[in-house]
């Protein structure tokens, strides 16, 4: 499945105020089977872009087309509690699959799978989604998105409110379905470490414009741009970058978490064997 966004512009008008251009001429080609990170400062238009790609906002100008593949384009919104309406967690998660004309038994199996995948305690499955803690609500919203068997999954700040085990469960699940189903992913987040563990491509949105379309290695080269917008590299890349800048024999521009670890381990291993210091 592919999503093509062409020259997307979204202008909001607020009462008694000048119009706000939240997105400005964004052109993007998102491929199935690939995972992209959406980085950008507060108010830069990340949620607006995701909502437009999901068809929840009609762009002021430009177009979004979805081609090929099976399964819907699904968005897990930034503020999960705003989307809840069902009487129980199970019903909340079942709502989407039911509307896709899945068989009842398949819906039930999907719901079980999704709630397990986000590691929500089983005794919470039958309570109202409004009677949950913040992190539990996030898990339910993510489960509801996963249960729809999306062809393309758009995630808006999926780690907010999630504790350590919750984040680990999410990363494991997303990696697994990505490997198994060829799903496409676009993830907006202020948490570069989470994004680094999951994505290859990096989109940088600033003031509603696409300021960079690169990879993690490419982002290391652009660290000055990033800092100018008060953004940061993932911790591992930042560490490698600092070591490299201090003259250590490491290459900072690594493309994935695995590669970054391999580079750090290699460096530390050589140091142990008595390699030279600064």
């Amino acid at each position: 499945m592919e999503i093509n966004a062409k020259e997307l512009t979204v202008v909001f008008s607020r009462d008694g105020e000048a119009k706000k251009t939240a997105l400005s001429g964004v052109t993007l080609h998102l491929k199935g089977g690939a995972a992209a990170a959406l980085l950008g400062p507060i108010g830069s238009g990340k949620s607006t872009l995701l909502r437009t790609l999901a068809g929840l906002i009609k762009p002021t100008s430009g177009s979004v087309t979805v081609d090929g593949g099976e399964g819907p384009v699904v968005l897990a919104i930034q503020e999960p509690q705003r989307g809840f309406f069902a009487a129980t967690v199970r019903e909340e998660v079942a709502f989407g699959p039911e509307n896709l004309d899945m068989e009842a038994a398949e819906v039930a199996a999907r719901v079980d799978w999704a709630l397990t995948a986000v590691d929500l305690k089983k005794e919470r499955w039958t309570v109202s989604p409004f009677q949950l803690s913040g992190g539990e609500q996030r898990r339910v919203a993510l489960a509801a998105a996963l249960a729809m068997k999306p062809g393309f999954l758009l995630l808006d700040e999926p780690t907010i409110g999630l504790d350590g085990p919750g984040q680990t469960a999410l990363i494991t699940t997303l990696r697994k379905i990505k490997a198994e189903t060829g799903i496409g992913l676009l993830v907006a987040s202020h948490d570069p470490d989470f994004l680094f563990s999951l994505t290859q491509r990096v989109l940088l949105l600033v003031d509603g414009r696409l300021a960079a379309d690169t990879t993690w290695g490419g982002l290391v080269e652009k660290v000055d741009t990033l800092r100018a917008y008060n953004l940061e590299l993932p911790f591992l890349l930042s560490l490698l970058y600092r070591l490299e800048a201090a003259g250590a024999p490491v290459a900072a521009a690594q493309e994935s978490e695995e590669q970054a670890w391999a580079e750090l381990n290699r460096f530390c291993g050589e140091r142990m064997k008595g390699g030279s210091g600064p």
Partner: protein
Amino acid sequence: MAPFFILDQVSYCYPGSLTTGVCQVNLVLEPGTFLGVLGANGSGKSTLARLCCGLLKPTTGQVLVDGYSTANEEELRYIYRQVGMVFQQPDNQFVAATVEREIAFGVENRTLSSEVIRQTVGLGLSYFGLETLRNADPHSLSGGEKRLLSLADVWVLKPKLILVDEPLAMLDPGAKQRITRFWQDLRDQGQSMIWFTHGLAEVLSADLVLVMENGRAVWTGPPGELLAMPEQARAWGITLPPATEAADRLGVKEPVVTNEDELVSVLWK
């Protein structure tokens, strides 16, 4: 004189719910203390926060602020003025139609001087970078903008005790740094604060940390001690600072590192 803030055997059960929200928590705070409350999802942090500000009344036990109890309606009015809370989900606290009116709302309840109100609101808008959004509807803001507004709301009231429930969620790295520095300054001026989160990095400078598990306070101590027991901290659902995790994985045992600078100097010395 009674201590300034006391939780005395505080328990709370949500009506009709089988799980305990909070179970027999005890705490005594001196003025000027910065307390971190850590715990996994569903461990009872936000419930405890709502009990501390009087929004929920303990099922048993009591919460005392300057000797006044949150269980007593009349005393509660005093407590509302002393304790300010930044909610985990900022939407829940907005009441006004514009950002400016929202910040003014609480201030207007406390003073009649329109000059003081105008000045205070102006300061709130500029400190939190919200000037250009002053006429916007709070509910139409982006996630991070809402968070900044919710912080401004409470800051302008200058409460004696500030409760913040995951105050850095939804902020970009620049805003996280700004707000962290901002709390640090307030603290240096003697502000009492309770910070609820699952990330240890956020409360490393706390005087004391309390860990919640299944509604109970299971551990209290300085944050440094928690760093020295990473296995246990992880089992409680607490996330460790990324530098600490990386050092652990690279086999760096000594010294304990908590940030990038320290790790760089350990690895390349």
